[in-house]
């Protein structure tokens, strides 16, 4: 890392004060309902001080640490997408005239707070970038979307430990954030000292840091931060081989593994809710009882619902198998063709929050292990489906291939 600075734990709140003075609404991790979620933060004591999380497929619980780390956990069920793309947005409201015309169309004032994200992890920075590309990178952009995050201030945190379901190393999205932040903190806990090694990522970040008591980082402090990074990188709970994964999934769309996972998948959509890049929304028009006014709402939707793919006649993806396949292949494969990158950042949320513990890294591995490359077109009646049993006929050569 380049020039770095050190802020002592005792001075941490000066950082929050500096942001507050600039009119930012600080949102960051906090404990609520036995999970670490994102909400407004006023002081460092609102953070999950001394907490860590234990995550596995279908499991999440908090546990007390034996230190007072502010950021000693991985990511929880919330992601920053709730600020980029809120769960419910009123797009406009209008009056409906006698002739059906809409008048007085008012779009809500774009007065969303100026957010400062405190504690964004490297995987999340990638997710924010990916979601920005979806919402703002196309030929049609809604100004409301860009208004929400154009003034965003990001204080990233370099992960001090990997979560049980993390695989950012495989996705090359972490654990160390290299760009996309205004400031990045690495928390270092030593026997007698608790401090943060701070990297500056922008001029705005430098200005804010100037108002926080800090020193130039010594070599030993930089090394301590480096050690934290290396330790986290070695602790990944999962791995995903992404070698040509798009092509792998494209040629295995009829793989029997999809049937297998469909027997477990409840199509509950939890994975889409917690995923930081899932962006699907549904648009609904709502009228009042008198029919005088109509509002257009945009709500989070999930490709796991049957209605999602409904056309005249019914749903294109009626079976659970087709819906799970849609989600996983979108995330890992078609996203590349649609938006130029993977849709997955390796945060592991979908694995942790799946009630039956479905793990997309395991599903991908199963498919890779029995890749059907080289076999003829799917379902062609290969020997696996039709078993020839040459009974009786003497000298009957070549049964069905």
């Amino acid at each position, binding site marked *: 890392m380049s020039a770095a600075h050190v802020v002592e734990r005792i001075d941490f709140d000066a950082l929050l004060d500096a942001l507050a003075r600039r009119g930012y609404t600080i949102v960051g991790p906090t404990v609520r309902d036995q999970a670490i979620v994102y909400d407004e933060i006023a002081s460092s004591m609102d953070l999950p001080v001394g907490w860590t999380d234990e995550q596995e497929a279908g499991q999440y619980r908090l546990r007390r640490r034996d230190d007072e780390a502010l950021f000693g956990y991985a990511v929880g069920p919330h992601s920053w997408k709730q600020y980029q793309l809120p769960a419910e947005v009123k797009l406009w409201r209008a009056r409906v005239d006698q002739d059906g015309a809409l008048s007085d169309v008012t779009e809500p004032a774009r007065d969303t707070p100026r957010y400062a994200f405190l504690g964004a992890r490297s995987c999340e920075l990638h997710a924010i970038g990916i979601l920005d590309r979806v919402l703002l990178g196309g030929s049609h952009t809604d100004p409301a979307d860009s208004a929400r995050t154009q003034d965003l201030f990001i204080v990233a945190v370099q992960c001090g430990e990997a979560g049980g379901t993390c695989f950012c190393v495989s996705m090359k999205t972490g654990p160390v954030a290299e760009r996309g932040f205004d400031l990045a903190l690495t928390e270092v806990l030593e026997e007698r000292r608790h401090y943060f090694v701070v990297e500056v990522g922008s001029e705005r970040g430098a200005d804010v840091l100037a108002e926080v008591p800090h020193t130039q980082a010594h070599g030993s402090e930089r090394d301590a931060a480096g050690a934290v990074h290396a330790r986290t990188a070695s602790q990944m709970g999962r791995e995903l081989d992404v070698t040509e994964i798009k092509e792998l999934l494209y040629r295995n769309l009829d793989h029997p593994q999809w049937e297998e996972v469909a027997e477990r998948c409840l199509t509950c959509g939890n994975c889409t809710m917690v995923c930081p890049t899932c962006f699907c929304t549904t648009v609904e028009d709502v009228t009042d009882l008198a029919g005088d006014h109509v509002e257009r709402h945009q709500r989070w939707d999930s490709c796991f619902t049957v209605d999602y793919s409904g056309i*005249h*006649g019914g749903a294109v993806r009626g079976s659970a198998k087709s819906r799970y396949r849609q989600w996983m292949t979108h995330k890992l494969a078609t996203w590349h063709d649609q938006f130029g990158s993977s849709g997955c950042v390796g945060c592991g949320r979908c694995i942790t929050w799946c009630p039956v513990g479905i793990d997309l890294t395991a599903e991908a591995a199963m498919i890779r292990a029995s890749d059907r490359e080289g076999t003829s*077109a*799917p379902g062609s009646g290969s020997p696996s489906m039709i078993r*020839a*049993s040459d009974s*009786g006929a003497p000298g*009957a050569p*070549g*049964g069905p291939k």
Partner: protein
Amino acid sequence: MKGLEDLIADASVFAGLEPRRLALIAGCAGNAHIRAGTMLFQEGQPADRFFLIRHGAIALEVHSPGTGSHVIETLGEGEVVGWSWLFKPYRWQFDARAIQPARLVAFDGACLRAKCDADHELGYQLMQRFASAMLERLQATRLQLLDIYGDARTPA
């Protein structure tokens, strides 16, 4: 346990063929069985063989997004499944799915075409029988098209 030739001889589509020619046909055949629900073949795939149903039932279907699979016809014991192996471009036009577990005799289409090319009498005999079976299906399909049970004019 019947030999392949006996099984083929029993089928009405091969009725009346002399033993020598039945043996030729059997030389391109083998037994097969398939579980209920499995696809025998799919629209668009290479049609390299056809099947005689010994036991069980096969549904010919068309799949459409939204409405799903629509069964056009079901075929049962003694019936032949698949004609696209006879004519270029040798590709299946429909899906076929076992609706019951089925025991089949599977015929290698290329093998049989080659034998017909070499023995025109065999070819003529087979074409007569196949044409007859196809005509029967065509006539049945035309009746199906009439939608005779439907109401006069119901909008879609």
